[in-house]
């Protein structure tokens, strides 16, 4: 054997196989580390998604907790308020005048009508209730902190549009031109504006080009279908009427092709036109509502909105009165861009200017949005609150807890401590495990068919909601309670039985108290589940739009998750913030409940 191994060919073979072995081992180790990385990547994905979700909602929801107020002098003219019927007096005009007085320069009728819209619906009520509380205010001028509208809130929070200050260096010459002003900078400061506009045009062109490309694909697909449709028509023969499927298909294809071709042509023309404007880098541009808004701030609160740019001068319209024409030194004027085009936001350019001038005057204050926690639902975003949902959730959970805790614990005690091992108890066990995995919406069907239609209990009430959720959380509580009871060592039971306790005495006096922390933990987790549940409550009518905060178990109520669902459907941007805000409130409660469960577990859990 030894001389065989010494032979050169064997040696070569051995070294070859060693090399192969080494390669295989390397490969196996690579596979090993790859496999490990897959696991890490999976965990990483879950964590990243969680972080993304929470930060997204936090970002969207925080604005809901902030509200802006403006300090206004309100003249409570004695002539306008009927001291005998204060509640019925017309406070609208009083409040509206107070904000109009802030802008003496705003004279056009439509603008004066638009000004009060900066204020919230609440503002009038605030003033009215202040006067009702203290009628001696009539005839005086009082300073009120009035709530601003939701759009104003969004603007101040930077949610409506980006605000970019463009640096300027030159001195500005202001001249009156036909219906507006002509502004010229000594240092070519407006070139930047023109470049930004051109850039915006270019992105629009690119978008249109993309649309055109998509349409071309549609056109090609239609063209590809055409021959087969024509053949089908030929096969149908000359006798086919217009209602024949083949004829209909051909006609539809032709119509589609024509309309696609027309749209395509229009798109192409638009793209070409835009391209020409973009390529002519120094060409003058008119600023329409589909382009960003640029404003020039002049001394003494004068503001000019730029409407046209050409070379180093711009033309514009005064949105706030311009004090004087002539030269303005550098540093005394500034240039601001609001990037979101006016057509794409709900707040107009003028409203932006009014709001910023209020802010410059130091009248706007932002504070915590208490009404969000003090009100029920509303169709108006700025006065909609989560109180109704919170109370509804609390009532519902009370019913759920009152039903599911005793029943669940009793069932767990029976199954764990007393039940004989027979077919019936096995059936119950299988049943409970199955119920834990039944889709929640099916419990909603049960609630609808049995509680509402059969027993005739009140629709959309916290009572029925609580009952449905109790049935749903029952399996969770039973399973957790059984685990807690099982964790109590048999020695406890045996000791109790040994000193003469009955089986029930042993369970109720000794085992149950020891299992209580575990049962409570399971119950809290079950309650947290119930608090977040939405689908079954939709079935039993808790989706109704309910303004009043519920006061009893049989009142029509809604719960926090359903409130979230209802708000998420509404198109207003302010409601989006409210939805995310309500989610934050819900997550806050869930966090508290889970933290409580963890604390209970840490504090009382005993290892035997």
């Amino acid at each position, binding site marked *: 054997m030894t001389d065989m191994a010494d032979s050169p060919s064997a040696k070569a073979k051995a070294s070859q196989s060693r090399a192969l072995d080494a390669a295989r081992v390397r490969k196996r180790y690579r596979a090993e580390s790859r496999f490990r990385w897959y696991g890490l990547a999976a965990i990483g994905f879950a964590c990243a998604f969680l972080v993304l979700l929470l930060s997204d909602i936090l970002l969207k929801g925080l604005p809901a907790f902030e509200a802006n107020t403006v300090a206004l002098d309100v003249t409570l003219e004695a002539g306008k308020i009927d001291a005998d019927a204060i509640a019925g007096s017309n406070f609208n005009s009083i409040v509206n005048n107070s904000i109009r007085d802030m802008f003496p320069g705003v004279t056009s009728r439509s603008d004066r009508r638009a000004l009060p819209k900066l204020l919230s619906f609440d503002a009038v009520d605030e003033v009215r209730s202040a006067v009702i509380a203290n009628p001696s205010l009539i005839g005086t001028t009082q300073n009120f902190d009035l709530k601003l509208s939701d759009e104003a809130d969004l603007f101040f929070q930077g949610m409506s549009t980006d605000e970019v200050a463009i640096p300027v260096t030159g001195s500005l010459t202001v001249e009156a031109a036909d219906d507006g002003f002509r502004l010229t900078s000594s240092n070519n400061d407006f070139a930047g504006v023109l470049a930004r506009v051109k850039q915006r045009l270019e992105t629009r062109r690119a978008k249109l080009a993309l649309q055109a490309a998509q349409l071309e694909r549609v056109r090609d697909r239609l063209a590809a279908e055409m021959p087969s449709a024509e053949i089908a028509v030929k096969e149908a023969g000359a006798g086919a009427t217009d209602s024949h499927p083949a004829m209909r298909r051909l006609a539809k294809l032709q119509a589609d092709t024509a309309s696609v071709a027309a749209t395509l042509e229009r798109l192409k023309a638009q793209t070409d036109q835009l391209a020409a404007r973009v390529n002519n880098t120094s060409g003058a541009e008119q600023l329409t509502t589909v382009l960003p808004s640029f404003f020039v701030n002049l001394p003494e609160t004068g503001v000019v909105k730029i409407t046209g740019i050409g070379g180093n001068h711009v033309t514009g319209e005064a949105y706030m009165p311009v004090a004087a024409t002539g030269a303005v030194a550098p540093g005394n004027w500034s240039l601001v861009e609001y990037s979101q085009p006016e057509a794409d936001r709900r707040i107009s350019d003028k409203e932006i200017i009014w709001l910023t001038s209020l802010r410059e005057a130091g009248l706007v204050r932002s504070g915590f949005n208490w009404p969000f926690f003090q009100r029920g639902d509303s169709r108006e975003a700025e006065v909609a609150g989560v109180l109704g949902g919170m109370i509804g959730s609390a009532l519902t959970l009370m019913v759920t807890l009152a039903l599911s805790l005793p029943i669940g614990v*009793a069932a767990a005690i029976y199954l764990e401590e007393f039940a004989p091992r027979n077919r019936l108890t096995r059936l119950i066990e299988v049943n409970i495990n199955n119920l834990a995995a039944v889709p929640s919406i099916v419990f909603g069907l049960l609630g609808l068919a049995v509680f509402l239609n059969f027993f005739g209990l009140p629709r959309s009430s916290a009572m029925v909601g609580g009952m449905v959720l109790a*049935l749903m959380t029952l399996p969770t509580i039973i399973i957790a309670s059984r685990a807690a009871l099982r964790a109590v060592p048999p020695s406890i039971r045996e000791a109790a039985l040994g000193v003469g306790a009955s089986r029930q005495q042993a369970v109720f006096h000794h085992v149950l108290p020891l299992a209580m922390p575990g049962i409570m933990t399971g119950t809290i987790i079950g309650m947290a589940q119930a608090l*977040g549940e939405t689908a079954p409550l939709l079935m039993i009518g808790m989706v109704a739009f309910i303004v009043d905060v519920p006061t009893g178990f049989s009142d029509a109520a809604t719960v926090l998750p359903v409130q979230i669902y209802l708000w998420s459907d509404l198109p207003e941007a302010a409601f989006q913030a409210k939805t995310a805000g309500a989610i934050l409130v819900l997550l806050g409660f869930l966090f508290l409940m889970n933290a409580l469960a963890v604390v209970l577990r840490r504090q009382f859990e005993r290892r035997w």
Partner: protein
Amino acid sequence: MLIVVAVLVVLAFFYGKSRGSAFGNTASHLHSLPHYHGYFVALMVAIPLLVLSVLWPTLSGYYIDSHALAALPSDLQPENGLARDAIMRDIRLLASGVISDPDRLSAFPQGVRAAGSVYANLQSVSGWLQIVVAILVGVGAAFLATRRLSVTFRARNSVERIFLAVLIACSAVAILTTVGIVFSVIFETFRFFAQVPVTDFLFGTQWSPQTALRADQVGSSGAFGAVPLFIGTILVMLIAMCVAGPIGLFAAIFMAEYASPRARSIVKPVLEVLAGIPTVVFGFFAALSVAPLIRTWGEAVGLEVASESALAAGIVMGVMIIPLMSSLSDDVINAVPQSLRDGSYAMGATKSETIKRVVLPAALPGIVSAFMLSVSRAVGETMIVVMAAGLAAHAVSWDLIETFNPLQAVTTVTVQIATLLVGDQEFDSAKTLSAFALGFVLFFFTLILNMIALHVVSRFKEQYD
């Protein structure tokens, strides 16, 4: 009424207890502790009173209703059940005294107002009568119960027997719930199939319940073909499982085999938080953040993406299911005995080879059932799809790429149940009943999946115990 019952029961307890203690003074061989005598008397009082407080409102309700109706003048007598319900609602409204405005009061006919006052009178009489009867019954029951008390009376055994009955009744609630679910869906489903043939429902490819209601042409148009819904459900479920299956499984493998205790203590809470987030929050995220993102990306590469796409809903649903999948798989992987791994290592296998060739095959039944439970969860999930997947059923054809296009809006079984039953419904229309038929399909599909999965898991655990 509840207060009266509570007071009577508490009084009965203390009375019974004092009687029990009294025995204790005279004889030292009292069978049961005094407070068991108290419990016994209290239970003897509570049971008839609870029966009474359940029965009384029902019975007196019938009596009062019939008398209030009899008080109506003959021209206002209702002709059918619907009219009867309507007039009873008016009478109850008037009797409750909510309406104090004379203008609104006079809007009701004189006869109805008279019946309303009859109703209110009878109701207050019934209320007082009930309390009186309750007190009489309570005192009578307490008297009868105390007569049975004696030194040798086995009060504890009687009380424990009642307690045990209560415990059994509570565990039966689980069965009652299942029975309730089965009956409520089956009953309405049969009514639905009386109007629409089963085959139309199961194999029809057109789903438009609204039109059937409007044109009053129930069942004739085949508008209740549920195939589009099944396809939508399967599509969303497949996408979700593509996310949750591998990620959940790999997360479980990592947690069970690789992670240090410290890493476990960090990752486990993260997964628990993910599991604890309400589905409506996932739905919001899917609809407002993920769907627009997918749309933007899709359009950037030139694809047509609907604003509500199956893809967005499926991905987010997949993430929602990851914790379920990983915790179930984690359990079964941990249940594989260490000896199997040690044997594999002894043969020179690396860790990943051991996992792939030994642990996973051994845990396969458990992993399959984890998969099945996840599928059942995905199929039954409602809020994410309601908010992010859309409402309109899209056309079904043999063009499978088009039918299973994940970029389109789809609708699912759960979405349809939710939308059909939200708001006011008349309970005889096929539209409403179809929701129950869908619920029936959903319930039995998930039930079978769950039963098989749970059975497999329990068999699997037994095998290695």
